[in-house]
């Protein structure tokens, strides 16, 4: 199988596998207890916290581990809104945020809060001016913006948004799920969230960082774990493995930049070649201001599910934002907000170390698959 779905999950990094196996033996005990095995687990946990905090540009006591990236977002959004309840109930989010942000916003709305959604350009970039205007409204409790879009790869104007939030005295939650472990992270945020399995760590580890001085109150019942921010017994071995993957990915900045450049060039090849090889295709997302590993295109007159099924049969694992492939029967809110084709959509996202040959094999297989599906619908 040629795996081209890294934006869903990056294969486990070898350093994470080694660390996980070792920590299963040495870090299984309860880190909150006081005997030797427990203190060992606690040491491993705190070392992992320090390592992750270092990469995020945070203090270790600002970082907690959650059960997933989604949980980190839910806690980050709802906790920050709770903390500023007396100041206001207005929430500002980008229109193409991850569904975890949208669902947290929905929850806030059901609780009587208000939500303002800032629109995006045709390439999926949040309108920075409109964002600044929205956060300056009185009663704004929190603003949320992703670093880069998970479906189309477009980078968001986080620096401009952060400056606007700072000027308005509004905390900014930055969802760094697609860029943590890949790109240098912004430094100006109040809350930052990420997910370990997106950078080659194991599933089941999310990161929630809350800057000192940011008001935050848990939306959950009280629990003493993770500085009272994330409930439940920490999965120490998985957290240790997540930190090991992050260290391995970011430890050598030059090597990481080189790999990003290599992936970005392969993405550029897909962006150029797909419209040349397949008629009636729209490549979406920003061609320049984008993540290095994600490219998305839509094929006219093709059902997304048929396309994924045929690509799977040919040995390619990719994903799609088309409605018929999602559980909701709704088209992707990202493609919808951009006003681009939602059907026949394919997202190709390159894992670390993917070979040039794999990308070329995908490009070689795609045209005939699209032609066959179109022919089956009577389109020639």
């Amino acid at each position, binding site marked *: 199988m040629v795996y081209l779905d890294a934006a869903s999950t990056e294969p486990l990094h070898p350093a994470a596998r080694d660390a996980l196996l070792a920590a299963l033996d040495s870090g299984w005990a309860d880190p909150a207890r006081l005997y030797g095995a427990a203190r060992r687990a606690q040491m491993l946990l705190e070392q992992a916290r320090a390592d992750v905090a270092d990469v995020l540009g945070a203090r270790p006591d600002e970082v907690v581990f959650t059960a997933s990236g989604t949980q980190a977002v839910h806690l980050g959004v709802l906790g920050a809104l709770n903390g500023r309840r007396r100041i206001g109930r207005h929430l500002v989010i980008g*229109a193409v945020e991850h569904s975890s942000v*949208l669902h947290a916003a*929905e929850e806030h709305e059901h609780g009587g809060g208000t*939500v303002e*959604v800032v629109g995006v350009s045709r390439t999926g970039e949040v309108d920075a001016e409109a964002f600044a205007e929205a956060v300056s409204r009185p009663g704004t409790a929190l603003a949320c913006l992703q670093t880069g879009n998970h479906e189309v790869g477009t980078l968001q104007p986080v620096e401009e948004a952060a400056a606007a939030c700072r000027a308005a005295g509004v905390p900014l939650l930055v969802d760094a799920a697609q860029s943590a472990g890949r790109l240098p992270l912004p430094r100006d945020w109040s809350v930052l969230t990420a997910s370990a399995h997106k950078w080659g760590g194991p599933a089941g580890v999310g990161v929630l960082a809350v800057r000192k001085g940011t008001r935050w109150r848990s939306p959950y019942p009280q629990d003493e774990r993770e500085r009272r921010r994330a409930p439940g017994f920490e999965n120490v071995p998985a957290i240790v493995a997540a930190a090991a993957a992050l260290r391995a990915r970011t430890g050598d900045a030059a090597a990481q930049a080189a790999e990003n450049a290599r992936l970005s060039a392969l993405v550029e090849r897909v962006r150029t070649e797909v419209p040349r090889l397949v008629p*009636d295709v*729209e490549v979406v997302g920003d061609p320049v201001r984008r993540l290095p590993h994600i490219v998305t295109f839509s094929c*006219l*007159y*093709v*059902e997304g599910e048929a396309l994924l099924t045929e690509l799977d049969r040919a040995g390619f694992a990719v994903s799609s934002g*088309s*409605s*018929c492939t999602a559980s909701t*029967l*709704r*088209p992707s*809110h990202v*493609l*919808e907000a951009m*006003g*681009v*084709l*939602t*059907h*026949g959509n394919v997202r190709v996202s390159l894992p670390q170390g993917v070979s040039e040959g794999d990308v070329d094999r995908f490009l070689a297989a795609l045209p005939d698959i699209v032609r066959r599906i179109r022919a089956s*619908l*009577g*389109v020639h």
Partner: protein
Amino acid sequence: MWRRRSGAGRSETEEPRAEARAETQAVTREPAALTIDALGRKCPIPIIMLADQINQVPMGAVVEVLADDPAAYTDIPAWCRLKSHAHVDSAEIPQGGWAIRVRRNY
């Protein structure tokens, strides 16, 4: 809710704005030369029907697509942009779904 722009959709002929508005009004008064009933059909079928039939109307005439797959609401204007036809407007219809009007440009 933010997942759906409510009411009538924006016109694809937004630029230049004043000209487009005048044009839209002129076309809105003109009845559709052809109505394609794609209600109950899933994308991409409504778009395939539109692509198949748009050449049946004279140049500059309007085709109206009735569709209730939410994807059609975004995809028909996007198709117009890709194919250089004009999206005139989209209006909700009583039975659910939209009447999406497209002007044949060539």
